């Protein structure tokens, strides 16, 4: 079957598992002919999914999935490949911003998409203020130039660039460690596809999960080659760094996934996260958030056998 899967950014290690499944023939083995469509800074592929132009979309977090429910958009998260959202805040070391509690007083370089989601939670949970926010346009220079500032990022890339260019090792705060328990890098599909062709969805989920396990634990050279083909500007050292960080933080494989398999999602965590977001004022408590996901395709232990035995 021909399917198109859209990511949320230019090809990078954070999409590694999908490229892995494509590169090593896992998708093919599951009878899928997959095209990966790269995202970009101003693209909104979720609308393409809603309009039926693509079959699967990479969801950055669950907030947008809840949004879809709120707007009656029939999009459902069917698997979550990241157990922890790699979203971080980073600060300059030794500038009085070494503890998470210090961060709200700093100037914050935050992108618009994070501002309308994560940051809203940070406001209620930790007292961050919108007045401190400066726009972050995927360019860390203003952060590096200002010692009293913090900046958003992904654990897997921004600290590396800041370190390399800024010649200092920034403090990194993974929000997942501070209570931000959104799933991340979800696979989203249209509800009608789930209903009409659950088998296709299942095969795509399973193959992607296997791809991710192989990317993290196996030989990912081919996947990286494919990533570099799609995005020639990315460097090997960055890819290596990203993979290392994903392992270090247990982004892909930690908690539930160690028993349920990569891609795992649970009702309990969804409920917890939704409660937090409701608290932050993002959603009405009455929202039927359960429509945003389905556990039908995950928690089946797929790929557990690919984990290295400790």
């Amino acid at each position, binding site marked *: 079957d021909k399917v198109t899967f859209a990511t949320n950014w230019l090809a990078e290690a954070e999409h590694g598992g999908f490229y892995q499944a494509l590169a090593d023939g896992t998708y093919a083995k599951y009878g899928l002919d997959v095209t990966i469509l790269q995202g970009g800074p101003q693209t909104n592929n979720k609308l393409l999914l809603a309009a039926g132009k693509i079959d699967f979309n990479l969801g950055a977090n669950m907030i*947008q999935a809840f949004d*879809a429910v709120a707007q009656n*958009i029939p999009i459902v998260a069917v698997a979550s490949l990241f157990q922890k959202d790699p979203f971080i805040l980073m600060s300059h070391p030794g500038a009085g911003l070494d503890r998470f509690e210090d961060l709200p007083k700093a100037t914050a370089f935050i992108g*618009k998409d994070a*501002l*309308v989601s994560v940051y809203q939670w940070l406001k209620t949970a930790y007292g961050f203020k*919108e*007045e401190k926010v400066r*726009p972050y346009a995927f360019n860390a*220079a203003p952060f590096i130039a200002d010692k009293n500032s913090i900046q958003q990022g992904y654990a897997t890339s921004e600290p590396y660039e800041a370190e390399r260019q800024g010649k200092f090792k920034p403090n990194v705060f993974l929000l997942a460690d501070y209570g931000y328990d959104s799933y991340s890098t979800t696979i989203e599909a249209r509800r009608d596809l789930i209903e009409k062709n659950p088998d296709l969805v299942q095969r795509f989920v399973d193959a992607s999960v296997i791809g991710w396990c192989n990317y993290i634990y196996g030989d990912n050279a081919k996947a990286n080659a494919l990533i570099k083909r799609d995005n020639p500007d990315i460097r090997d050292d960055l890819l290596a760094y990203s993979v290392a960080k994903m392992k270090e933080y247990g982004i892909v494989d930690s908690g539930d996934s160690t028993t349920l398999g990569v891609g795992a999602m649970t009702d309990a965590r969804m409920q917890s996260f939704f409660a937090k977001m409701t608290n932050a004022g993002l959603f009405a408590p009455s929202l039927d958030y359960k429509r945003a996901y389905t556990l039908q395709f995950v928690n089946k232990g797929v790929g557990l056998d690919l984990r290295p035995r400790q």
Partner: protein
Amino acid sequence: MRPMRWVQEYGPPGLVFAALLAGWEVFVRLADLPPYILPSPALVLETLVTDRATLFPALLTTLKITLGALAAAVLGGGGLAILFSQWKWIERSFLPVAIVLQVTPIVAIAPLLLIYLEPSSAVLVCAFLVAFFPILSNTALGLASTDRNLVDLFQLYRASRWRTLLLLRLPAALPYFLGGLRIGGGLALIGAIVAELAAGAAGQGAGLAFRILEAGYRLNIPRMFAALTLLSLTGIAIFAVLSVLSAYLLGRWHESAMSAER
């Protein structure tokens, strides 16, 4: 006779406008498009009303940036055009710089600006950069298009450069300048949007751009369209105001502003 004429002038555009809206509404209904792909005009209007508390303050913010940028563009673009017309070597030296400023993408230089400027000034600078070039270019063209015989006349009276500029070249360039202004007005609005996205503050004091983007992220497409509608109406209003100004300033002497009858 007056009302007849009014109907004649504004009837067709009114009809076309109504037809466009109706066609849109019908299309949405027939194709049964969900609101997140294309909301119907009725829904957009409804959203405009229900979300007015969010949208109108945002409009105000954007409007402020727009007008500030337009004013800066008039001063900057017009002033530069005047300098260019007075000293050819300045034109040859700095026109390339002006072109570079025009074609440099805001998103690329916004971070640099953010390092050195307050966000509010950075936004103004970005919006200015988008809007100033048409005014510069058209004014320069107008200044260069001054009737040669009148230039001779001023030379005859040994008018100084500046008086020639003030009394001859500027009035002669007025139609061109106003044309540039009409283009620049819309661009200032886009500039405000782009600048806000690249360098602007968010949250409380955010402008329409942020609202549009936010609505897009939150997949609230009807609200996005409501904001876009406000933006469009603002654009039309700016153009209309500048057209009236144009007609007022040129009415008695320039062909472009005169009616066919004499």
